[in-house]
Protein backbone atom coordinates (compact mmCIF):
# COMPACT_ATOMS: atom_id res chain seq x y z
CA UNK A 1 0.00 0.00 0.00
CA UNK A 2 1.49 3.31 -1.03
CA UNK A 3 -0.42 5.56 1.36
CA UNK A 4 -2.26 5.28 4.66
CA UNK A 5 -5.91 4.23 4.36
CA UNK A 6 -8.35 7.09 4.71
CA UNK A 7 -10.21 7.70 7.93
CA UNK A 8 -13.55 6.49 6.55
CA UNK A 9 -12.09 3.16 5.44
CA UNK A 10 -10.46 2.72 8.84
CA UNK A 11 -13.67 3.45 10.74
CA UNK A 12 -15.63 1.09 8.49
CA UNK A 13 -13.06 -1.63 9.15
CA UNK A 14 -13.17 -1.02 12.92
CA UNK A 15 -16.98 -1.00 13.04
CA UNK A 16 -17.11 -4.23 11.04
CA UNK A 17 -14.50 -5.83 13.32
CA UNK A 18 -16.18 -4.68 16.54
CA UNK A 19 -19.66 -5.52 15.28
CA UNK A 20 -18.60 -8.97 14.10
CA UNK A 21 -16.77 -9.81 17.32
CA UNK A 22 -19.61 -8.46 19.47
CA UNK A 23 -22.13 -10.48 17.50
CA UNK A 24 -19.96 -13.59 17.84
CA UNK A 25 -19.78 -13.10 21.63
CA UNK A 26 -23.50 -12.42 22.01
CA UNK A 27 -24.45 -15.43 19.88
CA UNK A 28 -22.92 -17.76 22.48
CA UNK A 29 -25.35 -19.45 24.89
CA UNK A 30 -25.69 -17.46 28.15
CA UNK A 31 -25.10 -20.56 30.26
CA UNK A 32 -22.56 -23.17 29.18
CA UNK A 33 -21.53 -26.34 30.96
CA UNK A 34 -17.91 -25.99 29.86
CA UNK A 35 -15.33 -28.56 30.88
CA UNK A 36 -15.50 -27.75 34.60
CA UNK A 37 -17.58 -30.81 35.47
CA UNK A 38 -15.20 -33.17 33.65
CA UNK A 39 -12.23 -31.56 35.42
CA UNK A 40 -13.98 -31.95 38.81
CA UNK A 41 -14.75 -35.61 38.14
CA UNK A 42 -11.11 -36.41 37.38
CA UNK A 43 -9.57 -34.14 39.99
CA UNK A 44 -8.67 -37.03 42.32
CA UNK A 45 -6.31 -38.58 39.74
CA UNK A 46 -4.59 -35.27 38.96
CA UNK A 47 -2.49 -35.18 42.14
CA UNK A 48 -3.61 -31.65 43.07
CA UNK A 49 -6.80 -30.12 44.48
CA UNK A 50 -6.84 -26.88 42.47
CA UNK A 51 -8.72 -27.37 39.17
CA UNK A 52 -6.67 -24.68 37.37
CA UNK A 53 -3.36 -26.30 38.39
CA UNK A 54 -4.75 -29.72 37.41
CA UNK A 55 -5.54 -28.41 33.92
CA UNK A 56 -2.24 -26.55 33.56
CA UNK A 57 0.16 -29.25 34.71
CA UNK A 58 -1.73 -32.48 34.12
CA UNK A 59 -4.79 -32.53 31.83
CA UNK A 60 -3.40 -29.94 29.40
CA UNK A 61 0.26 -30.29 30.35
CA UNK A 62 1.21 -30.23 26.68
CA UNK A 63 0.09 -26.58 26.36
CA UNK A 64 2.13 -25.59 29.40
CA UNK A 65 5.19 -27.48 28.14
CA UNK A 66 5.02 -25.63 24.82
CA UNK A 67 4.47 -22.35 26.63
CA UNK A 68 7.63 -22.84 28.69
CA UNK A 69 9.36 -23.69 25.39
CA UNK A 70 8.10 -20.38 23.94
CA UNK A 71 9.54 -18.53 26.93
CA UNK A 72 12.91 -20.26 26.45
CA UNK A 73 12.77 -19.52 22.72
CA UNK A 74 12.04 -15.83 23.38
CA UNK A 75 15.09 -15.67 25.65
CA UNK A 76 17.26 -17.31 22.99
CA UNK A 77 15.91 -14.85 20.40
CA UNK A 78 16.57 -11.84 22.66
CA UNK A 79 20.11 -13.05 23.30
CA UNK A 80 20.63 -13.50 19.54
CA UNK A 81 19.66 -9.97 18.54
CA UNK A 82 21.22 -7.92 21.35
CA UNK A 83 23.82 -7.81 24.09
CA UNK A 84 23.01 -6.32 27.46
CA UNK A 85 23.31 -2.53 27.38
CA UNK A 86 26.05 -1.24 29.65
CA UNK A 87 24.81 -0.49 33.13
CA UNK A 88 24.09 3.13 33.94
CA UNK A 89 24.59 4.21 37.50
CA UNK A 90 22.11 6.43 39.26
CA UNK A 91 19.13 4.55 40.59
CA UNK A 92 20.84 2.93 43.56
CA UNK A 93 20.30 5.30 46.48
CA UNK A 94 20.72 4.08 50.06
CA UNK A 95 16.93 3.86 50.51
CA UNK A 96 16.52 1.50 47.55
CA UNK A 97 19.47 -0.65 48.63
CA UNK A 98 18.09 -0.97 52.18
CA UNK A 99 14.59 -1.63 50.84
CA UNK A 100 15.87 -4.39 48.56
CA UNK A 101 17.85 -6.02 51.38
CA UNK A 102 14.73 -6.16 53.55
CA UNK A 103 12.22 -7.08 50.85
CA UNK A 104 13.95 -9.63 48.63
CA UNK A 105 14.13 -12.46 51.23
CA UNK A 106 10.40 -12.06 51.85
CA UNK A 107 9.72 -12.10 48.11
CA UNK A 108 11.59 -15.38 47.73
CA UNK A 109 9.57 -16.73 50.67
CA UNK A 110 6.35 -15.51 49.02
CA UNK A 111 7.35 -17.20 45.75
CA UNK A 112 7.82 -20.47 47.65
CA UNK A 113 4.43 -20.07 49.31
CA UNK A 114 2.69 -19.35 45.97
CA UNK A 115 4.35 -22.42 44.47
CA UNK A 116 3.16 -24.61 47.35
CA UNK A 117 -0.36 -23.18 47.45
CA UNK A 118 -0.81 -23.88 43.74
CA UNK A 119 -1.70 -27.48 44.61
CA UNK A 120 -4.91 -26.52 46.43
CA UNK A 121 -5.70 -22.85 45.74
CA UNK A 122 -4.75 -19.98 43.47
CA UNK A 123 -1.03 -19.88 42.80
CA UNK A 124 1.50 -22.01 41.02
CA UNK A 125 4.62 -21.81 38.90
CA UNK A 126 3.67 -18.68 36.95
CA UNK A 127 2.74 -16.57 39.93
CA UNK A 128 5.83 -17.76 41.82
CA UNK A 129 8.03 -17.14 38.78
CA UNK A 130 6.75 -13.59 38.37
CA UNK A 131 7.45 -12.80 42.04
CA UNK A 132 10.97 -14.24 41.63
CA UNK A 133 11.44 -12.07 38.53
CA UNK A 134 10.28 -8.99 40.44
CA UNK A 135 12.77 -9.78 43.22
CA UNK A 136 15.55 -10.16 40.66
CA UNK A 137 14.54 -6.86 39.01
CA UNK A 138 14.75 -5.07 42.38
CA UNK A 139 18.24 -6.48 42.88
CA UNK A 140 19.21 -5.36 39.35
CA UNK A 141 17.78 -1.87 39.92
CA UNK A 142 19.67 -1.61 43.21
CA UNK A 143 22.84 -2.03 41.16
CA UNK A 144 24.02 -5.40 42.38
CA UNK A 145 26.28 -7.06 39.80
CA UNK A 146 25.67 -10.59 38.57
CA UNK A 147 27.79 -12.93 40.76
CA UNK A 148 31.08 -13.80 39.06
CA UNK A 149 30.69 -16.88 36.88
CA UNK A 150 26.90 -16.86 37.14
CA UNK A 151 26.59 -15.37 33.66
CA UNK A 152 27.79 -18.58 32.03
CA UNK A 153 26.51 -22.09 32.53
CA UNK A 154 24.61 -21.60 35.84
CA UNK A 155 22.43 -18.94 34.22
CA UNK A 156 21.79 -21.00 31.11
CA UNK A 157 20.90 -24.11 33.12
CA UNK A 158 18.52 -22.00 35.24
CA UNK A 159 16.88 -20.60 32.13
CA UNK A 160 16.28 -24.04 30.62
CA UNK A 161 15.61 -25.95 33.87
CA UNK A 162 11.82 -25.77 33.58
CA UNK A 163 11.79 -27.03 30.00
CA UNK A 164 14.32 -29.80 30.75
CA UNK A 165 12.54 -31.07 33.87
CA UNK A 166 9.10 -30.93 32.22
CA UNK A 167 10.35 -32.73 29.10
CA UNK A 168 12.31 -35.22 31.20
CA UNK A 169 9.28 -36.13 33.32
CA UNK A 170 7.11 -36.33 30.22
CA UNK A 171 9.52 -38.75 28.54
CA UNK A 172 10.27 -40.79 31.70
CA UNK A 173 6.60 -41.67 32.28
CA UNK A 174 6.52 -43.28 28.83
CA UNK A 175 8.93 -45.98 30.12
CA UNK A 176 6.11 -47.23 32.38
CA UNK A 177 3.86 -47.76 29.36
CA UNK A 178 2.00 -44.45 29.66
CA UNK A 179 1.54 -41.74 27.07
CA UNK A 180 3.87 -38.75 26.85
CA UNK A 181 3.13 -36.40 29.82
CA UNK A 182 0.53 -38.80 31.28
CA UNK A 183 1.41 -38.54 34.97
CA UNK A 184 0.80 -41.65 37.11
CA UNK A 185 -1.91 -40.66 39.68
CA UNK A 186 0.07 -41.98 42.66
CA UNK A 187 3.06 -39.77 41.86
CA UNK A 188 1.34 -36.87 40.14
CA UNK A 189 1.36 -34.52 43.15
CA UNK A 190 5.12 -34.78 43.69
CA UNK A 191 5.93 -34.65 39.99
CA UNK A 192 3.76 -31.54 39.51
CA UNK A 193 5.48 -29.80 42.43
CA UNK A 194 8.89 -30.68 40.96
CA UNK A 195 7.94 -29.43 37.48
CA UNK A 196 6.45 -26.26 38.92
CA UNK A 197 9.52 -25.52 41.05
CA UNK A 198 11.80 -25.87 38.02
CA UNK A 199 9.40 -23.88 35.85
CA UNK A 200 9.17 -21.07 38.42
CA UNK A 201 12.98 -20.70 38.43
CA UNK A 202 13.08 -20.61 34.63
CA UNK A 203 10.15 -18.19 34.35
CA UNK A 204 11.71 -15.88 36.93
CA UNK A 205 15.12 -15.98 35.24
CA UNK A 206 13.67 -15.48 31.74
CA UNK A 207 11.54 -12.50 32.71
CA UNK A 208 14.33 -10.81 34.68
CA UNK A 209 16.80 -11.35 31.83
CA UNK A 210 14.29 -10.11 29.27
CA UNK A 211 14.27 -6.87 31.25
CA UNK A 212 18.05 -6.63 30.87
CA UNK A 213 17.48 -6.69 27.14
CA UNK A 214 20.16 -8.97 25.77
CA UNK A 215 22.92 -11.52 26.18
CA UNK A 216 25.15 -10.91 29.25
CA UNK A 217 28.49 -9.52 28.15
CA UNK A 218 30.42 -12.10 30.15
CA UNK A 219 28.33 -15.03 28.90
CA UNK A 220 30.34 -15.69 25.76
CA UNK A 221 31.76 -19.18 25.39
CA UNK A 222 34.59 -19.98 27.77
CA UNK A 223 33.92 -17.31 30.38
Amino acid sequence: MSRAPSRAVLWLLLLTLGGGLGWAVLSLPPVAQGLGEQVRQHLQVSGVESPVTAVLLNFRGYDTLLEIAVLALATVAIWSVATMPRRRRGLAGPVLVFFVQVLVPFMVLLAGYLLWSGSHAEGGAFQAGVVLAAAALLVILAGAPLPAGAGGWPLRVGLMLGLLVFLGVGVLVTTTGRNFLELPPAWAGGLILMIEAAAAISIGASLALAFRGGRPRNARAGS
Partner: protein
Amino acid sequence: MTVAFLYALSGVALFVLAFHALVSRRHLLHKIMSVNVMGSGVFLIIGALARRTPTADPDPVPLALVITGIVVAVAATALGIVIMLRVQAATGRPELPPADRN
Protein backbone atom coordinates in the same frame (compact mmCIF):
# COMPACT_ATOMS: atom_id res chain seq x y z
CA MET B 1 -27.50 -10.29 28.92
CA THR B 2 -25.54 -11.30 31.95
CA VAL B 3 -22.55 -9.71 33.68
CA ALA B 4 -20.28 -12.18 31.89
CA PHE B 5 -21.37 -10.75 28.53
CA LEU B 6 -20.82 -7.20 29.78
CA TYR B 7 -17.21 -8.09 30.56
CA ALA B 8 -16.82 -9.99 27.28
CA LEU B 9 -18.12 -7.02 25.27
CA SER B 10 -15.70 -4.75 27.17
CA GLY B 11 -12.99 -7.12 26.00
CA VAL B 12 -14.21 -6.73 22.40
CA ALA B 13 -14.14 -2.92 22.81
CA LEU B 14 -10.56 -3.06 24.16
CA PHE B 15 -9.53 -5.28 21.25
CA VAL B 16 -11.01 -2.90 18.64
CA LEU B 17 -9.60 0.24 20.30
CA ALA B 18 -6.14 -1.29 20.43
CA PHE B 19 -6.43 -2.49 16.84
CA HIS B 20 -7.15 1.11 15.86
CA ALA B 21 -3.96 2.19 17.62
CA LEU B 22 -2.01 -0.65 15.99
CA VAL B 23 -2.83 0.48 12.44
CA SER B 24 -2.80 4.26 13.01
CA ARG B 25 0.32 4.75 15.17
CA ARG B 26 3.77 4.69 13.57
CA HIS B 27 5.95 4.46 16.69
CA LEU B 28 6.89 0.81 17.23
CA LEU B 29 6.47 1.06 21.02
CA HIS B 30 2.86 2.18 20.43
CA LYS B 31 2.37 -0.81 18.16
CA ILE B 32 3.81 -3.22 20.74
CA MET B 33 1.57 -1.73 23.44
CA SER B 34 -1.41 -1.99 21.09
CA VAL B 35 -0.82 -5.70 20.56
CA ASN B 36 -0.58 -6.06 24.34
CA VAL B 37 -3.90 -4.33 24.91
CA MET B 38 -5.46 -6.43 22.13
CA GLY B 39 -4.20 -9.51 23.98
CA SER B 40 -5.64 -8.20 27.25
CA GLY B 41 -8.98 -7.80 25.49
CA VAL B 42 -8.84 -11.42 24.37
CA PHE B 43 -7.94 -12.55 27.91
CA LEU B 44 -10.87 -10.54 29.28
CA ILE B 45 -13.23 -12.19 26.76
CA ILE B 46 -11.98 -15.69 27.60
CA GLY B 47 -12.10 -15.04 31.35
CA ALA B 48 -15.61 -13.59 31.12
CA LEU B 49 -16.94 -16.46 29.00
CA ALA B 50 -15.47 -18.93 31.53
CA ARG B 51 -17.96 -17.55 34.09
CA ARG B 52 -21.04 -18.75 32.14
CA THR B 53 -21.15 -22.04 34.08
CA PRO B 54 -24.38 -23.00 35.88
CA THR B 55 -22.44 -23.37 39.16
CA ALA B 56 -20.52 -20.69 41.06
CA ASP B 57 -17.13 -22.07 39.95
CA PRO B 58 -15.70 -20.78 36.67
CA ASP B 59 -14.58 -23.23 33.99
CA PRO B 60 -10.90 -23.94 34.84
CA VAL B 61 -9.82 -24.79 31.26
CA PRO B 62 -10.15 -21.25 29.80
CA LEU B 63 -8.56 -19.82 32.96
CA ALA B 64 -5.54 -22.08 32.45
CA LEU B 65 -5.42 -20.90 28.81
CA VAL B 66 -5.30 -17.28 29.98
CA ILE B 67 -2.46 -17.96 32.44
CA THR B 68 -0.52 -19.64 29.62
CA GLY B 69 -1.32 -16.76 27.26
CA ILE B 70 -0.15 -14.04 29.65
CA VAL B 71 3.33 -15.55 29.91
CA VAL B 72 3.57 -15.92 26.12
CA ALA B 73 2.40 -12.29 25.71
CA VAL B 74 5.09 -11.04 28.13
CA ALA B 75 7.79 -13.04 26.31
CA ALA B 76 6.64 -11.75 22.91
CA THR B 77 6.54 -8.17 24.23
CA ALA B 78 10.10 -8.41 25.56
CA LEU B 79 11.31 -9.75 22.21
CA GLY B 80 9.39 -7.02 20.36
CA ILE B 81 10.96 -4.27 22.47
CA VAL B 82 14.48 -5.65 21.96
CA ILE B 83 13.89 -5.77 18.17
CA MET B 84 12.47 -2.21 18.31
CA LEU B 85 15.66 -1.02 20.04
CA ARG B 86 17.70 -2.69 17.28
CA VAL B 87 15.61 -0.92 14.63
CA GLN B 88 16.21 2.39 16.41
CA ALA B 89 19.93 1.69 16.63
CA ALA B 90 20.08 0.78 12.91
CA THR B 91 17.88 3.53 11.43
CA GLY B 92 17.85 6.19 14.14
CA ARG B 93 14.05 6.09 14.32
CA PRO B 94 11.78 3.79 16.36
CA GLU B 95 9.49 3.14 13.39
CA LEU B 96 9.49 1.07 10.24
CA PRO B 97 10.64 2.84 7.05
CA PRO B 98 7.84 3.68 4.57
CA ALA B 99 7.04 0.79 2.27
CA ASP B 100 7.36 2.75 -0.99
CA ARG B 101 11.03 3.58 -0.39
CA ASN B 102 12.14 -0.06 -0.75
